[in-house]
């Protein structure tokens, strides 16, 4: 959990380097402030003791190599895509990516998706309450 918080703070720093301080703030607020705290509560309720490994080191290395191969393939594809396609030059940007531009786009162009995601969050929270409650009423 502490590792997840540190990882998310580092990711927020990368977002800040990518010229989007609003997203860096949101990352810290949502992940460190909400997700990590919720996971800590779940850990306190459910005691996730990692069981002792019964496999050898070979399979760990095998699965690690598998994950590395997949991510390297995706990295290669993205790098190729970024390097070789014809992208619009960044001088012809239509907005500056500031918080004001994000707010305008959220409430004009993407208002439908904005409402939909608020509905999805509402349904998710009500569903989470319902699932946890039926667990409690059982003997």
């Amino acid at each position, binding site marked *: 959990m502490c590792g997840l918080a540190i990882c998310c703070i580092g990711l927020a720093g990368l977002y800040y380097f990518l010229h989007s301080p609003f997203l860096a703030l949101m990352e810290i607020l949502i992940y460190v402030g909400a997700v990590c705290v*919720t996971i800590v509560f779940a850990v306190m309720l459910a005691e996730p003791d990692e069981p002792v490994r019964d496999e050898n080191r070979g399979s760990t290395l095998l699965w690690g190599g598998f994950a590395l191969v997949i991510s390297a393939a995706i990295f290669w594809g993205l790098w190729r895509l970024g390097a070789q396609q014809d992208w619009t030059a960044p001088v012809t940007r239509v907005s500056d990516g500031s918080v004001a531009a994000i707010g305008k786009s959220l409430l004009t162009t993407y208002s439908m998706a904005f409402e939909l995601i608020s509905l999805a969050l509402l349904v998710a929270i009500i569903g989470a309450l319902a699932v946890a409650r039926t667990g409690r009423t059982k003997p």
Partner: protein
Amino acid sequence: MTPLPLPDRPDIYYIVAAFLLAIGIFGLLRRRTLIGMLISGELIFSAASLNLMAFNRFRAPDPAVGQIFVLFIMGLAAAEIAIALSIIIAVYRNYRSIKTRELSELNG
């Protein structure tokens, strides 16, 4: 031509995102508890968001679009966390364990 400073090169972000994805996949495959798998899934979400943000910063004509997309990813990840944690707590109430080896009533 002098090389660009490190934060202004897109390859760095692709490499970091690829490592995040590798760690996420590895944890998803090797972790033995449901909460560990959930955290690994979050790492995969982070890798996707970082790739989107890198392309948004260096290639896209409108920098607001990628930020809004990543905001939506964060919202959906938060919803997923809420649902998954409630399921984990319900499973723990029924089985007294969240180890994936012991949740095997449906095995073949």
